[in-house]
């Protein structure tokens, strides 16, 4: 047993399988959260029927997508049509390979981590282009053209913002960036006498465009293009595109968290006396609070099945809270909690933007990318470099 675990391939392989198995479920729940938060922003209720307060909706959606007829349009290029969602999903999921989910939970810590993610996410564009081309439909082709142009042009400011952060951190390894922030006792976003805040904002804006989310969701502008490059896709292939979209949201939020917001570190990682309240009391209160909220919501339900599901969720929350009270377990999972919480905040930000801002026109989008974001990011790079040289 010991021998197997010491093999350098075994633990990463287990983590890989775990991520591939669990991420679809997680993406489903990100979708549910998105629908619920968006509904709140738009004074609606969102899914309420499947499970208590819509909690089982992702499972129902997954079953629906798997059971649906898989239509390939008559004029489609079958091989490419088959390949496109695979490329999208594959590239989006492979970025997880270098994402440090916590100090122990990561697959690989390579010395070109950020470069790998940028490279892989650039290939993701290929999925969109292939999908739009192979569908043999005007809408798909227009959508894929737009997404290609958009992703390519917003990758530039994204890259410049990352380069600035790497310069400050002094390493390309994702874990190394986190440890550099621990060493300096400061999040990447506030480094360099506050000058890093500009690349942070640029990154946050460009990441929304990079994942083609509102207000930069021109590739799938419903009112003009039906659904963009995946117009002709249905059933499981559509589900793969959907999965890829949410995986890339998670990944790009994960990069932002790792590079700019301290990764899996707790806030103020160098202040010793905060360790107890932030690492033990906070998760305990958080999960017990959620559990208590579920128990409180139980009184609004009548059907026994729904009550059972919600009670199960409450029990799970109490269990998780209890797990954080055990010091040995706490050590292992606290990093994961902070990482997921930070990513959650960024995902909420994405949804919040979607609920607030109207979609940009195509020329506005390109103007904004090329005339504003890229010059600002280059300027920020130069200013940060000078500040590093002169002041540090």
């Amino acid at each position, binding site marked *: 047993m010991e021998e197997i675990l010491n093999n350098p391939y075994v633990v990463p392989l287990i983590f890989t399988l775990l991520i591939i198995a669990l991420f679809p479920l997680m993406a489903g729940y990100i979708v549910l959260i998105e629908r619920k*938060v968006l509904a*709140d922003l738009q*004074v609606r209720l969102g899914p309420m029927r499947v499970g208590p307060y819509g909690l089982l909706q992702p499972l129902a959606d997954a079953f629906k997508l798997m059971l649906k007829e898989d239509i390939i349009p008559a004029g489609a290029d079958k091989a490419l049509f088959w390949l496109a969602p695979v490329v999208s999903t594959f590239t989006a999921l492979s970025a997880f390979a270098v994402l440090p989910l916590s100090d122990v939970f990561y697959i690989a810590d390579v010395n070109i981590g950020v470069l790998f993610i940028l490279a892989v996410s650039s290939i993701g564009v290929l999925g969109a282009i292939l999908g739009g081309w192979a569908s043999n439909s005007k809408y798909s082709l227009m959508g894929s053209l737009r997404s290609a142009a958009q992703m390519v042009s917003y990758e530039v400011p994204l890259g410049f913002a990352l380069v600035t952060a790497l310069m400050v951190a002094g390493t390309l390894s994702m874990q190394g960036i986190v440890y550099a922030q621990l060493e300096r006792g400061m999040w990447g976003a506030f480094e360099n006498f506050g000058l890093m805040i500009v690349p942070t904002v640029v990154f946050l804006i460009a990441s929304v465009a990079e994942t083609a989310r509102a207000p930069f969701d021109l590739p799938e502008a419903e009112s003009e293009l039906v659904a963009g490059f995946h117009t002709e896709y249905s059933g499981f292939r559509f589900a793969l595109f959907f999965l890829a979209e949410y995986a890339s949201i998670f990944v790009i939020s994960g990069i932002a968290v790792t590079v700019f917001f301290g990764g899996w570190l707790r806030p103020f990682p160098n202040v010793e006396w905060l360790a107890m309240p932030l690492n033990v009391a906070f998760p305990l209160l958080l999960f017990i609070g959620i559990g208590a909220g579920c128990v409180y919501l139980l009184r609004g339900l009548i059907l026994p099945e729904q009550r059972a599901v919600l009670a199960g969720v409450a029990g799970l929350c109490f269990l998780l809270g209890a797990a954080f009270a055990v010091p040995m377990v706490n050590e292992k999972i606290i990093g994961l909690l902070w990482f997921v919480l930070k990513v959650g905040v960024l995902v909420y930000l994405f949804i919040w933007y979607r609920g*607030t*801002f109207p979609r940009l026109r195509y020329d506005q989008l390109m103007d904004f990318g090329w005339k504003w974001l890229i010059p600002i990011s280059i300027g920020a790079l130069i200013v940060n470099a000078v500040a590093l040289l002169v002041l540090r």
Partner: protein
Amino acid sequence: MSQLLRTVFLVDLLQGLWATFKNQKPSLAVTEQYPQERPAVAERFRGAPRLNTHPDTSETLCISCNLCALACPEQLIVVTSQRNPETKRKDLTTFTYDTSRCMFCGLCEDACPVDALELTQDFELATFTREGQIWDRQMLEEGPLPTEYKF
């Protein structure tokens, strides 16, 4: 200058974000969970027709005068009756009302001299067959019985 600062610091966008943020309380939601919560229709809403009966004797109030059938612009009401030789009055035998053609104008209830025919506030008129849309006297007196859902 202040305009420039507003643009640089994205003040308008932040204001927009704040506006949506403070309006996201679930308690503000206006959604009605339909079969659980039923909408309160307007007081003078005209919905499913009903043929009223006497509350004590449960005899029909209809005097078979046929005025409703004459008033109906769609001519969807058919009233048949039989002369009762003892009381010398018309007794109602059948009353059919085709809700599939009804436009709920309410002229029939206006025409009724004894307030027997009335358009109620019920609005769940869907049926599985076209024939189900044609209501007979029993249906008109008892009213529609929509499926009850449990939540």
